[in-house]
């Protein structure tokens, strides 16, 4: 730590993305974050760098270039084969102290949310959890607020500084990290004005993956820094890693999600079957509200919402879902929302593009037939 002064902001540059891989397979969110990081690096006029840790994972590095990374910092060791908090934190903090990035992004996976806070605490810097929007450029940030907030225009237009320790601080080069709080009732934009790197974990599935560019992948530079890691640095031991036996639902990548809620309670199996049929007709997958997961009707990988997954499919169908704000937080950006609910005052109708007030067990079969017919007529 001797020469590392994280308050000397000018000494820090470049945007870094921690590129999480598991068992030699890149997590999809790494590509999303590289794509988002490219945007931020361009706004700052700096380089974008992927940070890849593992054992024998060099083959994954170049592909990150295809999504926008100028270079990849590659740290390989048999001790980095499986994720451990101690091993990954030590190597990441050591290379950050050496190379001094200005921004560090980490996917908010179960691993990222273990790693991020440990690193931020060691580096004595700020970390914003589970971000859903990131900006540097103030004009772009203001446009975001115009579309995503109810703030009045004069407040948005006048926003260019924050009071930090009693001083007016110009935020034009700070990373503006926006995240939901209180289950999505409020949004907050957070800055880390006094320390570097500014760190954020980012919700998987929120940032859009850029198109892959082979030429950029070929041009991507690989950097292998010296680092030290020994058994003595690690206080936990990974005994085994077990993949879920059954295939998990790919909610995040789906074009159509048909979700069920508490409304299926009178015939749980029947309700899920109807959702599966509708999903099949529309070419999608089945999701569920928190109630359906908590009740054990669907496994946790089906959960849409604040504590589940964020989805923005082309079509989202909510069957018997009242639309608690936590659920809305995970699906309100869907392109077309169709809601079927018995209760005409259900909050889901406030955000639905099309609503039908009725019993899902009666409406859904008719809807399946109608959609089949409409598709056949095309």
């Amino acid at each position: 730590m001797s020469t590392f002064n994280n308050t000397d902001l000018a000494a820090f540059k470049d945007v870094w993305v921690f590129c999480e891989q598991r068992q030699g397979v890149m997590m999809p969110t790494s590509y999303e974050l590289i794509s988002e990081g490219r945007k931020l690096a361009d706004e700052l006029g700096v380089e974008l760098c992927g940070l890849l840790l593992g054992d024998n994972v060099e083959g994954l590095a170049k592909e990150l270039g295809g999504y926008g990374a100028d270079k990849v910092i590659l740290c390989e060791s048999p001790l980095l084969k499986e994720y451990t908090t101690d091993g990954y934190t030590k190597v990441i903090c050591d290379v950050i102290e050496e190379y001094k990035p200005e921004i560090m992004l980490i996917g908010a996976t179960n691993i990222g949310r273990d790693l991020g806070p440990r690193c931020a605490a060691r580096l004595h810097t700020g970390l914003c959890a589970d971000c859903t929007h990131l900006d540097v450029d103030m004009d772009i940030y203001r446009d975001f607020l115009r579309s995503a907030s109810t703030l009045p225009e004069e407040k948005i237009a006048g926003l260019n500084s924050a009071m930090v320790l009693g001083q007016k601080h110009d935020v034009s080069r700070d990373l503006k990290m926006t995240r939901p709080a209180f289950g999505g009732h409020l949004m907050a934009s957070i800055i880390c004005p006094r320390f570097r790197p500014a760190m954020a974990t980012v919700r998987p599935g929120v940032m859009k993956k850029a198109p892959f560019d082979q030429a950029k992948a070929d041009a991507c530079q690989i950097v292998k820094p010296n680092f030290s890691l020994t058994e003595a640095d690690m206080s936990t031991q990974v005994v085994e890693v077990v993949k879920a036996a059954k295939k998990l639902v790919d909610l995040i990548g789906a074009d159509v999600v048909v979700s069920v809620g508490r409304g299926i309670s009178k015939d749980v199996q029947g309700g899920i079957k109807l959702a599966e049929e509708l999903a099949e007709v529309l070419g999608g997958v089945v999701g569920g509200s928190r109630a359906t997961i908590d009740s054990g009707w669907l496994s946790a990988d089906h959960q849409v919402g604040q504590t589940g997954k964020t989805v923005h499919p082309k079509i989202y169908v909510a069957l018997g879902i009242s639309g608690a704000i936590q659920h809305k937080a995970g699906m309100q950006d869907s392109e077309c929302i169709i809601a079927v609910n018995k209760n005409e005052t259900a909050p889901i109708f406030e955000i639905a593009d099309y609503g039908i007030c009725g019993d899902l067990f009666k409406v859904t079969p008719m809807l399946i037939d109608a959609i089949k017919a409409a598709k056949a007529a095309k």
Partner: protein
Amino acid sequence: MKIIVCVKQVPDTSGKVAVNPDGTLNRASMAAITNPDDLNAVEAALALKEQTGAEVVVVSMGPPPAEGMLREVIARGADRAVLVSGREFGGSDTYATSQILASAISKIGVESEDIVMCGRQAIDGDTAQVGPQIAEKLGLPQVSYAAEIKKDGDTLTIKRMLEDGYMTIKVKTPCLITCIKELNTPRYMSVDGIFECYSKPYEVFDYNTLKDDPLIDPTTIGLKGSPTNILTSFTPPQKGAGMMLEGADKETCEKLAGILAAKHII
């Protein structure tokens, strides 16, 4: 052996949540509850207490009314409680909060066979940062997202959940574990527990109690010690009202399918 459990009092965001016109949360309109994941941490500690005879100490940072929540945790079976409370601690972000809680936990004392437990995350902020940050500040190994904990001597074997499966991790005490709801079902308060909860030891740690700890410094706690600042907070706009289709019959469904086809949505 001691198990120190961190708990937080939070507004219940699962029901109707009111937002003030200025965009802040109307806390007065909401019930204060013990953070759900923290109750799983309490339950895990009580289960280990039954197995090992460990002492369970519950600690919370918050305003004085959080005493009620701590008494309830004693009524569930904890042995004593510490409330960390002081004006100097106000405005802390997760980093500053973890500094303060780490110093309070140090004051309680972490011996070689002790365990610190936290819930995975609190429902008001959903950050999941304070547990790992406390572990770093105390120099303890951490295991987060624990869905199963087995103790054999000084070794804990923990099932740590991932999105696509799980890892089995072995760690020695002392360590910090963050707990998820799959770990257990929290017990209720017992009648005896309720009778006894005001006679069990209860302490308040304020700034003066903790100020000699190297972690506690005006530049590392409270608003001034927080590396992050809120630039702005806002409420998201409601999406414009959609179309409610009249009736819930065959014609309604055909009309909807027709619209979707015409707009090339299907």
